[in-house]
């Protein structure tokens, strides 16, 4: 059936098909887990009754997303564009560095982790050299951290510094 020829689908339909399929998998797993939770009775519902219903509805809705992706006609109004080249590099750097910051935060502590993160982001996103990146990065990170820790008395991960 040509309607199921995934290779001929535009990116939007293919992406939605994948998302719908993932949704089906996750919903199925969720529902299976929900059946492990005590259900009680209809008159005295337990913790598992509502999630079972949610899981079943989730399976149906994921199925709807898959069907919509298969049956939808390609539309030039709704094309999906993923970044390429420089833009892709920027997005990946941003996300990668942010994840790295989150990982090292409890180890290094707020001041150190935030400073390193800010320096790296400014270096990669701006035309500045290392010295300016270090100056701006440390200034921004220390100011924000000080604002929250000292002024607003919000405890942050300690780590090394």
């Amino acid at each position, binding site marked *: 059936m040509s309607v199921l020829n995934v290779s001929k689908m535009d990116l939007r339909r293919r992406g939605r098909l994948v998302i719908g399929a993932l949704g089906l998998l996750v919903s199925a797993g969720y529902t299976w887990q929900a059946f492990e939770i005590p259900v009680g009775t209809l*008159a005295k519902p337990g913790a598992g*009754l509502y999630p079972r219903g949610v899981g079943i509805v989730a399976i149906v809705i994921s199925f709807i997303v898959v069907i*919509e992706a298969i049956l939808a006609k390609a539309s030039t109004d709704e094309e999906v564009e993923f970044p390429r080249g420089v833009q892709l590099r920027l997005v990946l750097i*941003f996300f990668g560095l942010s994840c790295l910051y989150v990982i090292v935060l409890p180890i290094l502590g707020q001041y150190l982790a935030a400073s390193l993160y800010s320096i790296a*982001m*400014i270096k990669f996103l701006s035309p500045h050299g290392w010295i300016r990146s270090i100056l701006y990065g440390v200034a921004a990170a220390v100011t924000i951290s000080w604002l929250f820790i000292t002024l607003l008395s919000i405890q942050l991960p300690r780590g090394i510094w």
Partner: protein
Amino acid sequence: MDPIEGILYGLGLAFTPELLLAAFLGALAGTLVGVLPGIGPVAGAALILPITFNYSPAVGLIMIAGIYLGGQYGGSTTSVLLNIPGEGSAIVATFDGYKMTQQGRGGAALTIMAIGSFIAGTIALILLMTMAKPLAGFALNFGPAEYFALTAGGLLALARISGGSLGDGLFPMIIGIGLATVGAEAATGFDRFIFGNLDLSLGFALASVAVGLYGISELMLMLEDKDGTRKPMHVRLRELLPTRDEWGRATAPWLRGSFVGFLFGLLPVPSATLSTFASYKLEKTVSKNRHKIGTGAVEGIAGPEAANNSAALGSLVPILVLGLPFSATLALMLAAMVVQGIQPGPLLMTQHPDIFWSVIAAMYVANIMLLVMNLPLVGVWVNVLRTPRYMLIPIVILVACVGSYSLNYNMIDIYVIMIFGIVGYMLRKFGFSLASLLVGLVLGPLIEKYFSQGLFISGGDPLYFVSSPIAAGIWIVVFLAMIGSGGWKLVRRISRRDRQSVGAGV
């Protein structure tokens, strides 16, 4: 306490130095997050929400109100100055607002928007004072069946209306509802879907999910934009005053927009956004200068901006009287109220009228603060818009992580930001609606609560949920809204196809 006594009491509380300062800071922060690209009012409110928990309820609420309204004004400011809408409710402001800036009337556009917002806020306040008591009295008749219909039905209607296809709104909605089941179940305390990780017993923090979905994903989209160097035109203070003709032309749209916006605020729809489009359409239909709308006409911004602000106050009615938020920002406001010990619902007005009227007065004071503050600070906002991305992005991430960590002093809330950043990015890329996810996360526990209560009361009879005329009526309206929304979208698609055929000379 009658409405006039109530509002005077609330205003009396609000006009103290501490609360005025809180209103100022909230409005300032809200406008800042609305103006800055890459954050938006939802993520901005989520960032600031944890900070408000350290203060008294009145201070916290007035700050959130300031952020909510300031965020909308800030989003409209970028529409006018840069042709970049800060959020959905600011899209309409680009149609005529940016054209006015190009004609050297950007300052006047901002003034008309600011004053229109204030007038709309005043009219909405009067309407709210009139409607709140009868609606609260009516809502006292509501039981679990009616509340279940309102929460589940309202969420379904919101998801359908805010999405394009059926899946666009329903898929994120069910993700939100599913996420809300993670953690300790309210009645029995049974830990669900935590997979041995006790950190998940508290469930997913709304603020962290909101920051990830809206903030992180928005930053990623911002980095994709090759044209990230657009700079705003200068606006001089002396250009802020509209001409006599502009004042005259703005008056009727302000009034019309105020009523349209308030009505939309009462409905379970993305009221701020829809009200602006409805008001624009109304102006194009009835305005004396309708032929000029779209070319830089005052009517094109006056009506929609008034509608926007009036919808914000109108949406306080369902949230305060029924405890039902129908937008992402209102979901955060509800979370702020609950943390501050304020339980919205029909009894709030009768049992805690001081709190009820304080919240409303807080919104109005924030409205006044925006008017007083924003016009003189236009130059500041223009300079803020020049903040380079390489400084803005790390600052936003640091504030986001700190704010989320401060919720429960747990690293898991920071991990949630990153995970939902990717989820939000992908959902937005493929056309899904994020608002349904966030509102689903907030309403999910309420839907479960009323569902369980209903089954308990009825002895397990599922027909209980449609047994009352009110509940049945709500479900019929929801059903019609869902069918009608799909039908309307079909009609628009057909008429768009017809116009393309005519244009192609077929």
